[in-house]
């Protein structure tokens, strides 16, 4: 039999040699036969009165050669687009993505999918079938970034993003960067959304990508979300001025950004019920401790200027409490700010003294509280508990939740009293402690 030495070694050697010849025979897939999906998007379509899922895929084009910008397009590859958008329909999401191969010359692999987008139409009909596919399918994974597109989905995928080759990278980075820099969209990782969906007393909230129509020569359609009076107007003017300069140089207006990540789509169950704007979404981020960075502009005490405070650190906790038979929620928020801007005329430059410091802190906290309140009002309007207040109650008082609230949370949520306790010290002042004055 098989013993060390002798036959055993010979047999092992023979098998090892044999295995060399089997490579490339069994189930081989040459890269030339494959195409990688980078982004999947789903839309809803109708055919003979039947609902059809429409899958859109962004495929990386392996024939594309980058760097051939300066006229010398070597070979046939140089004229190829870096990506190709393809779509197909099917009665289920999986049938739809399988039907994609009808018009594709290569087998589509989904391992490298970076983002998942939904059209508003599908979102309003229910997205769970697609979310389920992402758990079930072996090639898809729940780490992708996901969002609902407000506007024309297909056009968004076909437009060129100024700084990126591919719309998939663009969407992926747009969502991540906006989340980190502005916190005006909710956390957009798919896994987080799946967990939100499965938790009792919590509703899903997906990021919103607003597709901006690319009108040549038109005013950019960007939404200005820092809606403080005066400042918004100022921003518009500023941008208009820039447009003027560029038009003069090229004789034609270059297009603005093709899309913006701002706000959120609020769901009840797996059906979308409405949009939230950037402020409301950031309010939601305050409450759920998912806020990363952002800026709040407040008015100075004497109404003679503005101060921009950057949010550095935030910590928040939802605390349910039973008060005489009624459940109330207290949200503790601690935020740390850093003064980044003091917009005052040089003549009346302010000295930063203790009273101004305290005044700013009070106003900073008040601004945060207002943002949370605004978010709550909108959520109550939509009857969707996106903050997970219900889940907090379920975690602390599971009995009460099961017996009393689970069945009627939607209605109970709209009457829920919530108190926001905000503590917001401004700890850093940048590199100068006061504006240097002329005198």
């Amino acid at each position, binding site marked *: 039999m*098989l013993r060390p030495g002798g036959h055993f070694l010979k047999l092992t050697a023979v098998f090892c040699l044999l295995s060399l010849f089997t490579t490339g025979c069994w*189930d081989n897939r040459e890269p030339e036969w494959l195409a990688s999906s980078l982004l999947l998007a789903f839309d809803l379509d109708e055919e003979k009165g039947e609902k059809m899922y429409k899958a859109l895929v962004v495929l990386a084009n392996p024939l594309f050669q980058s760097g051939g910008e300066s006229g010398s397009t070597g070979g046939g590859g140089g004229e190829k687009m870096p990506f190709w958008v393809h779509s197909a329909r099917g009665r289920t999401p999986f049938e739809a993505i399988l039907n994609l191969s009808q018009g594709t010359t290569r087998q589509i692999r989904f391992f490298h999918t970076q983002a998942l987008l939904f059209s508003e139409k599908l979102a309003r009909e229910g997205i769970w079938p697609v979310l389920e596919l992402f758990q079930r399918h072996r090639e898809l994974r729940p780490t992708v970034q996901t969002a609902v597109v407000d506007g024309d989905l297909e056009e968004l995928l076909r437009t060129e993003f100024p700084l990126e080759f591919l719309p998939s990278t663009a969407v992926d980075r747009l969502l991540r960067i906006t989340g980190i820099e502005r916190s005006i969209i909710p956390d957009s990782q798919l896994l987080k959304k799946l*967990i939100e969906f499965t938790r009792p007393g919590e509703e899903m909230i997906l990021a919103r990508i607003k597709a901006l129509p690319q009108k040549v020569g038109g005013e950019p359609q960007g939404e200005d979300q820092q809606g403080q009076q005066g400042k918004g107007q100022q921003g518009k003017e500023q941008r208009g001025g820039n447009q003027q300069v560029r038009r003069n140089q090229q004789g034609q207006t270059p297009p603005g950004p093709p899309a913006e990540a701002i706000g959120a789509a609020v769901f009840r169950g797996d059906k979308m019920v409405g949009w939230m704007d950037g402020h409301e979404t950031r309010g939601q981020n305050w409450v759920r401790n998912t806020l990363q960075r952002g800026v709040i502009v407040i008015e100075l005490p004497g109404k003679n200027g503005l101060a921009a405070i950057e949010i550095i650190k935030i910590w928040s906790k939802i605390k349910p409490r039973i008060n005489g038979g009624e459940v109330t929620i207290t949200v503790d928020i601690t935020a740390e700010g850093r003064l980044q801007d003091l917009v005052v005329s040089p003549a009346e430059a302010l000295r930063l003294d203790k009273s101004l410091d305290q005044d700013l802190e009070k106003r900073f906290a008040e601004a945060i509280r207002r943002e949370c309140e605004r978010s709550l009002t909108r959520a109550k309007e939509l009857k969707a508990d996106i903050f997970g207040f219900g889940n907090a109650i379920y975690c602390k008082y599971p009995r009460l939740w099961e017996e009393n609230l689970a069945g009627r949370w939607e209605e109970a949520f709209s009457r829920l009293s919530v108190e926001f306790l905000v503590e917001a010290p401004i700890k850093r002042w940048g590199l100068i402690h006061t504006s240097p004055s002329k005198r």
Partner: protein
Amino acid sequence: MTTEKIHNRQLVFMLFMIRSTVTIASLPVLTTGTAEQDAWLSAIVSLAATLLMILLIGGLAIKFPEETVFEYSRKLLGKTGGTIICFFFLWIFLNTAATEVRIYAELLTIGFLPHTPLIFLVSSMVLLAAVAVSLGVEVIARTADALIFSYIFFIAASLLGALKGFDFINLQPVLSRGFGPVFSSALTPAALGNQNLVLGVLVPTLTTPRKAIPSAALAALLSGIVLILSTITVVGVLGPKIGSSSLFPFFLMTKAIEISRFVERIEALVVIAWGLGIFINLSVFLYCGARGISQLARIRDYRPLIGPMAIFWIILSIHTYDDFLDLIKFFQPRVFFPYSITITVLPYLLLWAAYLIRHAGRGGKKYIRKRRIKPE
């Protein structure tokens, strides 16, 4: 008969890998019962049950430090009774290993190699184990020695990588539905303690058989810690609902890990660790089965039996279950728990009873009082 000896340390490693592989495979505390976010409590309960099982199996094994369970059961219960009980044990060795290799092959088919025939995956694993067994138990033990560090490293890396996505809220509320669901989830993992039956065959090969129980208990404790940590991590990352509805929760968790933009897709680590564990698992069970049959049939060497047994094993592993739904049904607490208790605990209770009766007249009672070993 060759006198192969393995060190107690090697026994610890082997048992640890056998037990932890179940954890990273299907995480039964989460997938079989209804405990959901309380699954980590079920893990603690099942750890206690496993320790009891070790006392039951190992306690008898150290009474006969020179013999395997197949020899002393016939001494204790007579030739016929002993042989019948031995067939129970042989069946468990056969069935457990066949089931585990099937689960591993299912994972590979579902997750990585959708077109590869199941029989190819199963037979390559079993044949590898057969080679190891034919080289002897010392070789298996030394392989465990060599593999243990990469095994632990892979599991630890997966668990640490998951910390970024960990959310404590997923583990709440604790014990909201009382202890019922906790116990329902602990039944199958506790019944899986029948893997410790290998003690009955391995104890006589140990260098210090009388320390078998501490060694096995250490292995159970270590794998219990892995189980508890994995359960907490999986539930914390995936949430109780997604975790309990998945087939391979640990695998799904590693699939959802994104350590940074460039470090993701680390599920391969888990599959490698699982493969290493399955290899040790199969080798040990195949060895125990072959030793058992050779002793029952009074064949001097167990090696000629390995080939036919391996073939039998492959066929059983393919044909016992039609698909994964069968496996899920088999591991449901109301099926698996009575099944395992009937063919593991009851025979051992019989053996213990026979042992106590036979040794009662010869100062056995005093002996028992002194060692504080109580029959179950």
